[in-house]
């Protein structure tokens, strides 16, 4: 499979006062094959959104490489960066905040073309009209309105429309449905799935909800405290999680059928997420891991293959 995005040893650190650093993302590597959907999951504050923004270079990575279609985005500046990045687009978590309240919908969705192409205003609005229809919005009724007149789900459709105007190859979805009602979540996920096949998109789907990710992803990567824990085909990951953290996350997914017994060996996470300013030595998950041993505090487990396409960063992988 042809690689479209390759993230190598990505590190993002923020200064948090003199001599203190927030280790938001620490040495993350992964690759995206053309046409696949990778789900990136983890608790709030684990660095998954930062990873998305660092790929876009909205946050400058401290070190590491982000290769998109062969070009290392971290080495590019200003205009060259903006040009190389046209192929990547992003959808944000808060559908209302991600649209400028003072602009009309047709201008919001037409903005990418206003920036990058020289076509006339009429042609631009014509393309906006086509895109509105594609994402299920009534162009005539909504073109001159402003975002606050629309619901969260509709606003997310507008965001999606805007993100597709430049025919991107890679779409980074940063928790695109977590601010929406469950019924609307399904609609938006279906829309994304439809558009993915129509535009042959590659998607990096960031979420904190394993159930949402399961539906849409080919592969799933699990992050904890700025580190990659496990990455694998989604079926494998859900059936046989190898990292104790992945296992705990899966056990925490609610069971909708009240007559189904919970697994007796289900384990639940205890304690709080440790500080990202002073993360635990060795394996960062060890403070909350039921299987932690002495070596876990001393040595950081590298991400390694335990079966083809299934990588885990744990000294004692399960199964």
């Amino acid at each position, binding site marked *: 499979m042809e690689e479209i995005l390759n993230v190598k040893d990505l590190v993002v650190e923020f200064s948090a006062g003199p001599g203190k650093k927030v280790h938001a993302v620490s040495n993350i590597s992964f690759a995206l094959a053309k046409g696949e959907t990778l789900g990136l999951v983890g608790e709030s504050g684990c660095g998954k959104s930062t990873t998305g*923004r660092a790929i*876009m270079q*909205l946050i400058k990575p401290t070190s590491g490489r982000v290769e998109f279609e062969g070009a290392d985005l971290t080495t590019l500046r*200003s*205009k060259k960066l*903006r*040009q190389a*990045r*046209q192929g990547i*687009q*992003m959808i*944000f*978590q*808060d559908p*209302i*905040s*991600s*649209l*400028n*309240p*003072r*602009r009309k919908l047709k201008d919001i969705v037409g*903005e*990418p073309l206003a*920036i*990058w192409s020289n076509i006339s205003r009429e042609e631009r609005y014509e393309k906006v009209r086509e895109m509105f229809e594609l994402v299920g919005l009534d162009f005539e009724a909504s073109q001159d309105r402003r*975002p*606050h*007149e629309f*619901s*969260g789900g509709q606003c997310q459709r507008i*965001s999606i429309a*805007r993100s597709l105007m*430049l025919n991107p190859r890679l779409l980074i979805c940063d928790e695109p449905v977590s601010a929406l009602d469950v019924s609307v979540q399904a609609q938006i996920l279906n829309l994304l799935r439809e558009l993915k096949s129509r535009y042959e998109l590659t998607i990096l789907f960031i979420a904190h909800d394993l159930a949402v990710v399961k539906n849409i992803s080919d592969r799933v990567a699990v992050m904890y405290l700025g580190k990659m824990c496990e990455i694998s085909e989604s079926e494998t990951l859900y059936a046989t999680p190898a990292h104790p953290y992945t296992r705990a996350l899966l056990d925490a997914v609610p069971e909708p059928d009240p007559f189904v017994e919970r697994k007796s060996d289900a384990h639940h996470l205890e304690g709080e997420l440790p500080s990202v300013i002073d993360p635990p030595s060795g394996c960062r998950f060890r403070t909350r891991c039921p299987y932690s041993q002495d070596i876990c505090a001393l040595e950081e487990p590298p991400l390694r293959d335990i079966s083809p396409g299934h990588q885990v960063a744990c000294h004692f992988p399960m199964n």
Partner: protein
Amino acid sequence: MKTKLGISFWLSLGWMVLVILAALLANVLPLPNPNASLVAAPNLGPSIHHLLGTDPNGRDVLSRVIFGSRVSLVVGFGSIALGLLLGGVTGILAGYYGKSVDFLFNSLAMIFLAYPPLILVLALVTFKGHSLWVITIAIGIVGSPLIFRIVRSATQSVAQREYVAASRAIGAPTWRVLAKEVFPNVAMTLVAFIFIAVGVAILAEAALSFLGQSVAAPTATWGNMINDGTNDLAQNPILWLWPSLALFFTILSINIIADRLRVRFGVRDSFI
């Protein structure tokens, strides 16, 4: 959906339109020269020929009030326009870029703010002369660090919104992000403040005039007319009243307009 502006707004707007029209058309209105002495007997009360009477020099008071409004309006709007140019541009840059840009401009603003504004204005006026432009520029410079602080903090909150990140993600160059996404949203929060600032600038000019430090006599300003009026209280007890009323209603109108606009344009991202 939209808040009504109310009768007080329209009355205030009416007054401001009247004041501005009178100031613009002062030369074509049938008014005697405001600085000509003895156009009639001194200290006349209001009459049909001189609607507001005459002062101890026999000058027409209505004419002086109307010509005096020019000074107030030019200084009020001109100084704030200058303040917006200086403080607004630096405020947006400092708020958006942060870090060293913010440190530089913010430090400058703090130094200015720490300096007593009256002394700065008096120094400028003393060295550069008592002309309308010097007064306007002086008040504009004194006001710019305050405008800077307000624009900067408004920009900081707007810059964190996701639509700014979205605009950058689409590939908008920085000037476009600032012009299309940041500025319109900052401007909305500024509208009300700008009107209040104009009111403050007009009052500052009036205070300077009252102290005899604004535009030199015999040019009429509301401030120096109030000062003359208080000196001539014995001969002409209501002389001070006319410029004071003009000033009072103008400031009141500006504040009412500002307040109603703030309610009307209160920045709302959503109704949810």
